[in-house]
């Protein structure tokens, strides 16, 4: 096959493009000051494993606090989002029920018309959510895309199953939790990952709504450490460097913050990845 070599080269380059930066960041975060100085910056070849950067960031201070805030936001937010989205998807999964068409239209219309940034900001601040971590959760709690994906799954549950449960006297909530949900674990896992990643990655809402340093999520801290630290004349969205230590963070400390920010996605991802294609095909089904 003449194309085989070209294919192999292309695939190797693709994989390397993703893995090399991850490798460089991980190795540098575990390098000692001497190794970093010898390399002149980012380290590619590990010489030793020096966890001092991680000890620094987890011995209290901005990063430790931000990891807690982001974890809290992610756990609270994902739970709330999943519960409300599953309930709504089930409520919308029975064509012919009262107000079904109108309600479906109400949800789907959000794909076509959006609020702008300014009115959204005014609503969130008007509700008194400014500088409150719920401002990172409530405005983005419902993704109608995720709702449509789950609903498409629910609608494929055989109607005989539901009917027989109903004849046995089960209520809707019971049917949902005992029959429909156990059949839909794959899609719940994928949507749960989508929500969790969204909350963990929340950056701009924090720029808009969170004023106090002690409520910054991890992305905001990462931005101020690396991107703002990189070019000191940055202003506007950038915040003044919140010192985790008395001295400016060394490269290893910065890279350790990057690793901490990456890790949740890398850990959860393999468990959910095999369901992606299924979830995406379902997503292509129109409501």
């Amino acid at each position, binding site marked *: 096959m003449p194309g085989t070599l070209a294919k192999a080269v292309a695939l190797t380059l*693709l994989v390397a493009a993703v893995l090399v930066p991850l490798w460089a*960041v991980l190795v540098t975060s575990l390098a000692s000051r001497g190794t970093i100085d010898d390399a002149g910056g980012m380290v590619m070849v590990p010489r030793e494993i020096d966890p001092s950067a991680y000890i620094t960031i987890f011995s209290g201070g901005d990063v430790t606090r931000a990891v807690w805030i982001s974890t809290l936001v992610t756990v609270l937010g994902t739970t709330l989002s999943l519960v409300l989205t599953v309930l709504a998807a089930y*409520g919308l999964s029975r064509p012919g029920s*009262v107000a079904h068409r109108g309600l479906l239209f109400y949800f789907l219309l959000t794909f076509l018309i959006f609020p702008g940034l300014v009115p959204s900001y005014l*609503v969130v601040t008007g509700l008194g959510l400014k500088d409150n971590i719920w401002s990172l959760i*409530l405005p983005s709690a419902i993704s109608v895309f995720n709702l449509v994906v789950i609903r498409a799954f629910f609608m494929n549950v055989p109607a005989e199953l539901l009917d027989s449960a109903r004849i046995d006297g089960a209520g809707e909530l019971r049917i949902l939790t005992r029959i429909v949900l156990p059949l839909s674990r794959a899609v719940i896992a994928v949507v749960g990952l989508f929500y969790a990643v969204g909350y963990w990655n929340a950056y701009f809402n924090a720029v808009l709504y969170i004023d106090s340093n002690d409520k910054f999520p991890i992305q905001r801290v990462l931005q101020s450490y690396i991107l703002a630290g990189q070019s000191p004349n940055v202003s506007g969205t950038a915040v003044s460097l919140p010192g985790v230590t008395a001295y400016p963070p060394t490269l290893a400390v910065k890279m350790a913050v990057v690793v901490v*920010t990456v890790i949740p996605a890398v850990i959860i991802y393999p468990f959910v990845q095999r369901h992606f294609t299924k979830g995406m095909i379902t997503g292509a089904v*129109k409501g």
Partner: protein
Amino acid sequence: MSAPSVTPTPGRETPAGRPPPRRPRRNRRTLRARLRRDWPLLAMAAPAAALLLVFHYLPTLGNIIAFQDYNPFVGDDPLDAFLNSEWIGFGNFEALFRDPAFWDAVRNTLTITAFQLVFFFPLPIMLAILLNSIVSGRVRGFVQSVVYLPHFFSWVLVVTFFVQMFGGAGLLAQEMRQAGLEPWEIMTNPDTFIVLVTAESVWKDLGWGAIVFLAALSAIDPNLYEAAAADGAGRWRRLWHITLPGLRPVIVLLLIMRLGDALSVGFEQFILQREAVGREAAEVLDTFVYYQAISTQQWGLGAAAGLFKAVVGLALILTANKIAHRLGEQGVYSKS
């Protein structure tokens, strides 16, 4: 037990197995009886509907402050300020359309959209075809796992990785300096910024974008390829006559969605890099709205720019969808 199989059945509203003759009888029931039967379903949808009402539809209505000289200081809270602010008709829009910075932002946005349509949009299709041609399931699974991963990184992380690789203190610059070369200016060069943001987008979403094409490819009947090969069609002819037609509906759908979204090119990506490369290159419509409204407190002007974007975006997606229907494609929503 595995999850129920998922077959895309557009337009079908009844779940399989529900006998059709029962429906007319149901519809004849009184509303009261139907409500008694269905109230749990309504109650289940209510909390999500309420959240959308407050955080989606209420701000959508709030766009009317685009017709006000909105001043947050004339009231105790945003609602009070809204009630007390002066109505100025299309004043904000007139000011907006006279502002050269606004047209710069529009031009940048459209340029980036066009550039990415040419240099980003085809790549996931190519990757999907490439992945689909790999026979070994293990190699394919490994490559897929790796290339999907960056989709789950935040923009802060993506820009961070690029800074650490290509920035002034990054890996590339450090290697070039050691080789006695003058490092290239990549992260801060306004002239090449469009290439940089496209490269970042490709790095983040190339693999993820391929998923939907992979799904479409797996739906193509393998017998078609065998028959074509038996008839002497080479690999390029098979690609042209079987693979691409098989992908056509998905390609058209995604093109429509991209066109409808022509005025959005991403937000955080630009906010994060605007200071490093300067306003001239990195100001897009979304960042313009942000800086007008929240940074310089010109609320009415920012709202006007946001409303302009929403209305033009809606018009674009409706137009693109209409064109798709004319071409005999299904589009984003069906005609009914």
